């Protein structure tokens, strides 16, 4: 039992490390690519916000992953099966993530985890096809199709609006004075809502949703006023030559982009860390000798542990990935990066709040495709999009098979 607990803890840390090493590039690469932040600054910001996201919003998603597809009640009679099962799910998704990274295909931790749970539930003696909540699984699968589409449409519309109202206008700087505070206040407002509404119990304010909405609106208004004033102070009394206008606008969008990148790291932390830690939380629970509760809560310390794993992954490997990806996407100007990141983070946070475990990577791919289709990229490689879609399709069956085999292997070992 103790050995299994050690394995579970180690695996959880390893998964968090992998996410830190690979996935964090999602949010920060655009900022580094656009040249708004240096690599070092990006790493520091990413660490802080990934950690906060995991700590503050992570729990909600975790519960869905653990309980949504396979009801806990199935395993009450034999917690060991559940514990080992979740362990094999984590191992399977870690293996598949590593293989995919070697093939340099972006796959999602969330998808691998769901696939693993499916595989384990199918082969375990207590499970079988009957115990799986196919409707819940269908909902999750549907959200994987809908979320990148939402990200794409959102980013498309956002970028077209930036083009239409800022870049195309006769007085672009004048309109940037409205657009930048607008983006800033929207980011803060949504961040506030996501942290408080169904967030961490410790900071959840006991108010109905419309009350929170009202406070969020207030935060929006105040932050709009403040940022408008700051921009106004900087821009007023300065003659900007026609030639330099574009540069000035992009500089403002660059500052906004930093905030949205933090926002995205936050959303990523909340969504993906949860899906990495979720299954292990279940097995640790069992291995430390507790019974399975029907709604076993995950201690915030476990989420903090996951967050720490991410930060270490970021510090040891992640910076390289950010540098590589950032170098590849220098095409993305701050205004485009802002559109993509804002659309991604909002979609991811909304889905996390709805308890839908979706993939940040996929929403990001959707959002960048959206910007590209809005004619925001010099060229959009449709073949790579097709490849990404194909690796998405194979993730579920592969991680299901892996998890099933690992479970079968582990259960045949006589653990004391």
């Amino acid at each position, binding site marked *: 039992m103790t050995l299994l607990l050690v394995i579970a803890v180690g695996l959880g840390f390893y998964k968090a490390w992998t996410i830190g090493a690979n996935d964090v590039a999602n949010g920060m690469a655009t900022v580094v690519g656009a040249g708004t932040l240096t690599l070092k600054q990006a790493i520091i910001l990413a660490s802080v916000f990934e950690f906060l996201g995991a700590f503050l919003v992570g729990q909600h998603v975790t519960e869905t992953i653990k309980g949504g597809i396979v009801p806990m009640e199935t395993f009450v009679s034999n917690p060991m099966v559940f514990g080992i099962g979740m362990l094999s799910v984590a191992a399977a998704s870690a293996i598949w993530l590593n293989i995919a990274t070697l093939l340099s295909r972006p796959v999602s931790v969330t998808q691998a985890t769901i696939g693993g749970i499916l595989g384990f539930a199918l082969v375990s003696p207590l499970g079988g096809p009957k115990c799986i909540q196919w409707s819940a699984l269908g909902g999750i699968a549907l959200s994987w199709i809908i979320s990148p589409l939402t990200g794409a449409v959102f980013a498309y519309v956002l970028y077209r609006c930036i083009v239409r109202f800022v*870049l195309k206008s006769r007085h672009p700087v004048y309109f940037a004075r409205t657009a930048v505070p607008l983006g800033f206040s929207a980011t803060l407002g949504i961040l506030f809502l996501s942290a408080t509404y169904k967030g961490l119990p410790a900071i959840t304010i006991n108010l109905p949703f419309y009350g929170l909405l009202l406070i969020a609106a207030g935060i929006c208004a105040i932050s709009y006023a403040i940022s408008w004033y700051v921009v106004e102070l900087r821009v007023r009394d300065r003659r900007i030559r026609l030639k330099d206008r574009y540069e000035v606008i992009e500089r403002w969008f660059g500052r906004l982009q930093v905030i949205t990148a933090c926002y995205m790291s936050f959303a990523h932390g909340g969504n993906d860390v949860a899906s990495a830690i979720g299954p292990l939380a279940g097995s640790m629970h069992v291995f430390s000798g507790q019974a399975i509760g029907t709604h076993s809560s995950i201690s915030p310390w476990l989420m903090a542990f996951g967050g720490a794993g991410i930060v270490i992954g970021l510090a040891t490997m992640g910076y390289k990935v950010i540098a590589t990806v950032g170098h590849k996407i220098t095409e993305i100007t701050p205004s485009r990066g802002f559109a993509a990141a804002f659309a991604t983070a909002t979609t991811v946070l909304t889905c996390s709040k709805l308890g839908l475990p979706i993939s940040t990577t996929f929403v990001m791919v959707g959002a960048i495709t959206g910007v590209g289709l809005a004619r925001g990229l010099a060229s959009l490689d449709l073949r790579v999009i097709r490849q990404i879609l194909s690796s998405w399709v194979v993730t579920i069956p592969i991680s299901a098979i892996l998890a099933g085999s690992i479970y079968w292997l582990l259960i045949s070992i006589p653990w004391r």
Partner: protein
Amino acid sequence: MDWAGIVGKSPFLPMVEHAKKVHECVLKVRPVADAVLAGKIDELTELQHQMSKTEFEADQLKDLIRQSLPTRFFLPVNRDDMTNFLTQMDRIADDAEDFAVVATFRKLAIPAELHADFLAFVDKVVEVSSALLEVSEHLAQLQKQAFVGPEAEEVLLKIQQIAHMEWESDKLSRKFARRYYSENWADPVTIILLDKMCRALAGIADHAENVAKNLRLMILRK
């Protein structure tokens, strides 16, 4: 994770490079014209070699851009406008090379009173090409700005000016043609060669205007 691959390489920066190379060819037209008038046939051969080399380099650049543009790439501008832009640009270099090659065929004796008209025409053509380069250099930056805004407006204005300059070069071409056809100083071969050279020069201006028009389509038809 490698989602960054969906952002393809920008064809616009190489296109600016190509435009610069093509203009390099056109810049050699004036030295060739000077050598023709001075009757320095050795210098002409040397110039023609240089011209062919530059034209070849431009060709290579063009092929490289073409290769990097398979249909799997979604472009922010109309694909046909883009390929036409490249084709027309390529023809500018071809015509500049043609001009240099024809100039080496035979030592021409052109009377001094025609020199001014000839050089005026040559200079106008080079001027059209310079104006085109100035516009083409905006291409990469325009793409970053989604082909809208003050810079795009400015480029559209300059494209109008290029069309006007091409018309001026046409007038100069006609004026020069009237002179060398109407006077009885020359033998028919000289006139044929002069005519060929003038056609090449007119071709440079023509294609430059077409490139500019294609750029306008890219801006308007995005």
